[in-house]
């Protein structure tokens, strides 16, 4: 609770939290907030020439190239972004933490193998790897989430590994080992709690990265597949209209930026609050 108050006390973080909450509300209550079903092609949704309608009274943000209501698609797109953001990043952080803690706590050959493998994964261009993986599997919502997790866990593993090693070498851990405290107790009672702040920060900041990667994959046409709306694939579908109907590209684009910004702002504030070594820096 005090953490929440500390976040709200910072104007930029409060703004970030507001955006995130708004996106969550949109995603959860999408069926009640949208005037039209997102996949319905409206009879009067296109001009006589077949062009998308500009923002107006009936279609608040206009319609897309198939005459579907942009606002409704945008609201449902929040669902896609958040589901992938939370699931993919959750898997990435869990996997990264598991690998990092195991390697850092056990060291030895297990640690060496795990960390050499993460080195290997670091050498892949992330987007290229994601594209190849997405092309390999038939991209559904969950596959896209999994692909992103497969790419993003590496950073977490590195950071957690370094922290685990540095904590295990501190005097208080040494003292416990010398009085015969079991490895399990040391790990769960004394090392993991120290890693918790880092994990919380990554769990937030990582969602921003994930939202951006999902948008990019969907923009390239290998992420979430239409007709399921995703902000990235809305831009992909409509980009041929970007000179005559720029709102079809820039409104979803703005939504992506806002959501990523929201998670970045909250994550940055969490880092300041949770990491005492950074206190007084700014």
């Amino acid at each position, binding site marked *: 609770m005090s953490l929440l108050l500390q976040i709200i006390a910072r104007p930029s973080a409060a703004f970030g939290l507001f955006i995130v909450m708004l996106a969550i509300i949109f995603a959860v209550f999408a069926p009640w907030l949208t005037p039209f079903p997102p996949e319905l092609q409206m009879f009067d949704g296109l001009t006589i020439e077949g062009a998308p309608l500009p923002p107006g009274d009936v279609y608040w943000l206009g319609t897309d190239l198939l005459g579907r209501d942009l606002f409704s698609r945008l609201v449902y797109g929040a669902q896609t972004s958040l589901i992938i953001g939370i699931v993919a990043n959750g898997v990435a952080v869990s996997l990264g933490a598991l690998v990092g803690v195991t390697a850092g706590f056990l060291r030895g050959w297990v640690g060496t193998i795990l960390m050499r493998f993460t080195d290997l994964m670091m050498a892949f261009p992330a987007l290229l790897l994601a594209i190849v993986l997405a092309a390999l599997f038939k991209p559904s919502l969950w596959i896209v989430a999994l692909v992103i997790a497969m790419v993003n866990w590496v950073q977490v593993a590195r950071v957690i590994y370094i922290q685990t090693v540095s904590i295990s070498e501190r005097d208080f851990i040494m003292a416990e080992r010398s009085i015969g405290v079991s490895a399990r107790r040391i790990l769960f009672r004394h090392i993991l709690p120290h890693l918790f702040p880092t994990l919380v920060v990554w769990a937030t900041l990582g969602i921003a990265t994930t939202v951006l990667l999902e948008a990019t994959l969907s923009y390239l046409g290998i992420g979430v597949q239409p007709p399921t709306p995703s902000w990235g694939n809305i831009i992909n579908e409509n980009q041929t209209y970007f000179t005559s109907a720029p709102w079809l590209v820039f409104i979803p684009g703005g939504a992506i930026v806002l959501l990523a910004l929201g998670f970045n702002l909250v994550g940055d504030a969490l880092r300041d609050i949770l990491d005492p070594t950074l206190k007084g*820096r700014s």
Partner: protein
Amino acid sequence: MTGYIIRRFIQAFLILLGVSFITFVLLYLVPADPARQIAGRSATAQTVANIREQLGLNLPFYEQYWRYLINLLQGDFGRSYLQKTQVGELIASRLPASLLLMAAAIVTELVFGLAIGIIAAVRRNSILDRTLMVISFIGVSTPQFVVGILMLYLFAVKLAWFPIGGYGTFQHLILPSLTLGVLGAGWYSRMMRSSLIDVLNQDYVRTASAKGMPRLRVIFRHALPNALLPVIAMIGIDIGFFMSGIVVVESVFGWPGIGQLAWQAIQRIDIPIIMGVTLVSACAIVLGNLLADLIAPFVDPRIKLK
């Protein structure tokens, strides 16, 4: 030092070997039949079988990989399935365009990133500082394709200051390099700010100010050189981000580099090209990281390589 470098090169070689193996496995699993693709739809089963034999696609997996590896060590990336050209030549002909784009993006991110970071640090906690930091946060929160389309819309379509895409002149370079550099500029400005604030809090900076040295001289002669080094040392690590970024930026602007080559190859499942570009990118990333580590002791003499 020499021992360290040799060890790192061996490590780099092993990493690249691993990358080649993983990529090969992934592409082996792609549900597409390259022989059928090359032969075309109307080819007979016999033709397809011949092509399969010719390319060694009928061999067991490990033999295919071994053949690829042996050729690779002789500098042969294989032939493109669809373009019927050597992949090595294709990459070599496209690499200069990508390198030019990346060099211009480094200039972009340093110029904007450092300038914003320095101003923010010097005017710490002012409204200007907060505004600049919000802008840098927006920079790191914007996907590159959105930046690219926005640049195209504003500066190529509406204002018509720059060409809408393509390659050749300095004019063509501006928008793609700005697009590729925005993300980095956001990160650099934040790093520059915190690095300079750190240094400005040091005793020797206070001493310099206490002696009555003008503020600008304190900042530019005493604080900045020390604050700049750790930031500059990050350029090596940027290579990895660029290798991802060029796939998007080159496809938005029609820039004929290896990013576009990779993207086209992925859409057509032209496996030798995907392999080749992945390996070249991995090579660049590994070298970039090595460079960053080698520079580190010069930046901060307290760091010892071991």
